[in-house]
């Protein structure tokens, strides 16, 4: 794959997350009943970072869970190989909570649809909002993010590669092009 452009560096990611943390607090008028759920894999460290920023700003701790949506994929039976199932850990009741779902990139919207199904199976939240680091367009379902780090118009030939310290030992967002 060919390297095309860098759209966020370490500082850019930090600023985007700080802004999203402020927006989450503002829109929800504080942190009462708020909880974050990161979608495996890069949504998990992003959710943890957002929780840390919210704690810095508001002084209150917001619970964080992790969600694996493999078992909710709508393309499972058409895949030749089974994807590995990771652990879902939501150590708090989701019923009546204000849930902020966190992922690195929103693209077709199918991952988010699966995540919504997965959360509904755990309980009935008061509201579910969506925070993503990058929105690259090309939605196939009527889903949009409430909090976006950066909007990046892309072509379908391109790949948005989010690299985070926790998962990749690197910290930037790149656009790559398929050969």
């Amino acid at each position, binding site marked *: 794959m060919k390297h095309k452009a860098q759209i966020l560096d370490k500082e850019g990611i930090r600023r985007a997350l700080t802004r999203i943390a402020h927006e989450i607090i503002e829109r929800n008028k504080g942190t009462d009943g708020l909880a974050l759920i990161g979608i495996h894999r890069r949504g998990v460290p992003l959710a943890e970072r957002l929780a840390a920023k919210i704690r810095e700003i508001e002084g209150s701790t917001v619970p964080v869970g992790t969600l694996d949506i493999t*078992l909710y994929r709508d393309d499972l039976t058409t895949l030749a190989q089974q994807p590995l199932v*990771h652990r879902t850990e939501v150590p708090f009741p989701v019923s009546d909570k204000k849930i902020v779902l966190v992922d690195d990139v929103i693209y077709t919207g199918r991952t988010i649809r699966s995540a919504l199904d997965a959360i509904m199976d755990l309980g009935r939240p008061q509201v579910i909002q969506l925070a993503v680091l990058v929105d690259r367009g090309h939605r196939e379902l009527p889903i949009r993010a409430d909090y976006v780090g950066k909007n990046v118009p892309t072509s379908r030939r391109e790949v948005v590669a989010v690299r985070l310290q926790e998962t990749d030992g690197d910290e930037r967002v790149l656009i790559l092009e398929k050969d």
Partner: protein
Amino acid sequence: MNWKRKDLLGLQNLSAEEIKLILDTAVPMKEILGRAIKKVPALRGRTVVTLFYEPSTRTRTSFELAAKYLSADSVNISTATSSVVKGETLKDTARTLAAMGADVVILRHPMAGAPNLLARTIRAAVINAGDGAHEHPTQALLDMFTVREKKGELAGLNVAIIGDVLHSRVARSNIWGFTKMGARVRICGPATMIPPEIEATGVQVCTRIEEALDGADVVMMLRIQLERQQQGLFPSIREYARLFGLNRERLALARPGALVMHPGPMNRGVEISPEVADGINSVINEQVTNGVAVRMALLYLLGGGGIPDA
């Protein structure tokens, strides 16, 4: 690694990596079992058939629940109420099921090798739920899952398997499985119930239960098959209980915190005393719960993706 097999016929031919993949996949499945709504849509639209030529409560129910929790449609066929009583062959019964659209067939059969025959006959995935005295791979996998959950790792553990090893498919699968994962396995039972040349599988044979229990991390008791008592493989049940039964005094020879396991159904007071069966070392009930998680993992791995032609 990825799962590449169409069927699960036994542990003898599985690699340590494949066993690890199944056990790892069972971990998130167990989380689902702890939820208020125990259901995920992973196998929606898939059909799972349990075909049991021998009676069973826990294995069949466990598979059925596993299929339901993954949203597959499940059908149970027991031979007493099927065309088997009219003389239909296993192959024909299976072909009928496959023609009706079964994606996974779970077979229990009194003849060793029956699942292998079935796997070659139909396109659907076949899971061996016990064939004769040959293998019972899902029981061994749930045993390994339970031990790994409690002890963290299987490699380096001392596992004692005690009882009627000769007739036990559970013992055979566990011997293959645990030795592949790096555990040391000892077996013990009356000499008439120890298969000849079993040492070739890498196990140590003990003639006295005290020797098998010494320093054991896991004590796996086997059901003494009372129906085989007629063959006179041991003099009396009382004598068996005295020589090979697990009680509190004998359990003290094992390592502190050793796990006591039993595949069920138990003969309380024969191979295991009630105080040990219900004691703090016993993980017998957890084995049953873990059985559902492990079977969910297998159905997911075998039943969800593209299944290659047989």
